[in-house]
């Protein structure tokens, strides 16, 4: 098989409603698609085009547009090419369907996204805590979660100018750039 996405696949994909295909490379295709049509697309790519490997599902939080972007990375061993299917879902309530019935590894990716972004996947086998078993706060990868504020509220900081350091500073050593300078946000 040639190492490009075959033309017939391109033609077939054009039939799906609300689809936009951008060829980034001979072996890399980006597909933007309406959220409702994604299971159909995956079914097609898996069943008819050999994209049997779901490498990852990633999530992007577009807080200004009040949307989550889900990216499904699919790899074909036959044509050695990558398809990334992008969808946008509403940030509230942040619910989407699971693709576990098509790709079993999706269970872990979906569980991870649920933990980090709070997106709920209907039909996913397990939506319980995955990595952050000690975490009781909001999903930490959401843009509205201010990690720095949470840290400043939870933890105390060690003194950066202790007495013993002054002696070293007098002798020409010590801290070159203070943490306060480093931590000042760029205007």
């Amino acid at each position: 098989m040639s190492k490009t996405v075959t033309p017939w696949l391109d033609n077939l994909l054009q039939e799906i409603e609300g689809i936009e295909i951008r060829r980034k490379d001979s072996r890399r295709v980006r597909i933007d698609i309406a959220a409702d049509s994604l299971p159909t697309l995956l079914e097609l790519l898996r069943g008819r085009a050999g994209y049997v490997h779901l490498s990852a599902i990633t999530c992007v939080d577009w807080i200004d547009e009040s949307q989550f972007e889900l990216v499904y990375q699919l790899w074909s061993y036959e044509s050695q090419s990558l398809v990334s299917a992008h969808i946008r879902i509403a940030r509230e309530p942040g619910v989407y369907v699971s693709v576990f019935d098509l790709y079993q590894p999706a269970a872990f990716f979906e569980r991870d996204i649920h933990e980090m972004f709070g997106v709920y996947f209907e039909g996913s086998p397990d939506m319980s805590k995955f990595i952050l078993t000690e975490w009781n706060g909001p999903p930490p990868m959401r843009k509205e979660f201010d990690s720095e504020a949470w840290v400043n509220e939870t933890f105390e900081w060690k003194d950066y100018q202790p007495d013993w350091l002054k002696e070293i500073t007098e002798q020409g050593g010590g801290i070159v750039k203070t943490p306060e300078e480093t931590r000042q946000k760029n205007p």
Partner: protein
Amino acid sequence: MKEIDIPIEASVGQSRTNPLARVFDELVRFCRSRSMFMLHYCTGCGAIELPPAMTSRFDMERLGIQPMVTPRQADILLITGYVSIKTLKRVILTYEQMGSPKYVIGICSCTVNGGMYWQSYATAKQLDQYLPVDLYIAGCMPRPEAVLEGMRKLMDRIRSDEADGWKDYYRRYDWYLGNQQHLFGDDWQTPADVIGEASHYDLAGPGTEGEHTRLLQQCQKPLEPQQTFFQIGGSLEKKGEFHE
């Protein structure tokens, strides 16, 4: 390093009559400082500097420092790098399993004040709030020379009987436990009976028990055997709870 105000108790009851006692104490301390088994809990990137420090190039073993496989046989707990809150629980469990005297070394900037992960929600910032740290080796990451230098420093401190962080853990257990509970929640508990150990070593001070240890006793549940499941096949159903 911050000076910690440790109340010094007068030795209770028996006064020492053996004139050779101090000699033996010094001998014991010398031997202790020359045979240190270290348990390196490789939490972060600093662990990468330990293999060269241990193996033939810098050869830590000539100082009597060797890696050890289990916490119960180890003297030093090396925390090499950032400690996530999840890891910190395991670190504390490991530390409490070790037999006294025990020493904790915090390697890398992350154990001092969070390091480059200072704004991360997932890492604990100051290790010495949760465990008594005897020595910090700062750097990101410290070179093997710095690690060895730190080890030499710890040896000196053991010989001069200054490395008494483990006593501090018993004397001020309530404070350490309070910080642990602040992170892990009120129902945090470990299998070790630290208060019992403190009274066994005759190290129970006014800071050993307090409001946090009372909370611990209120929330204490009897220990249950940990359930282990071996799963063969692709079923992803939840099979059991993980007990700590």
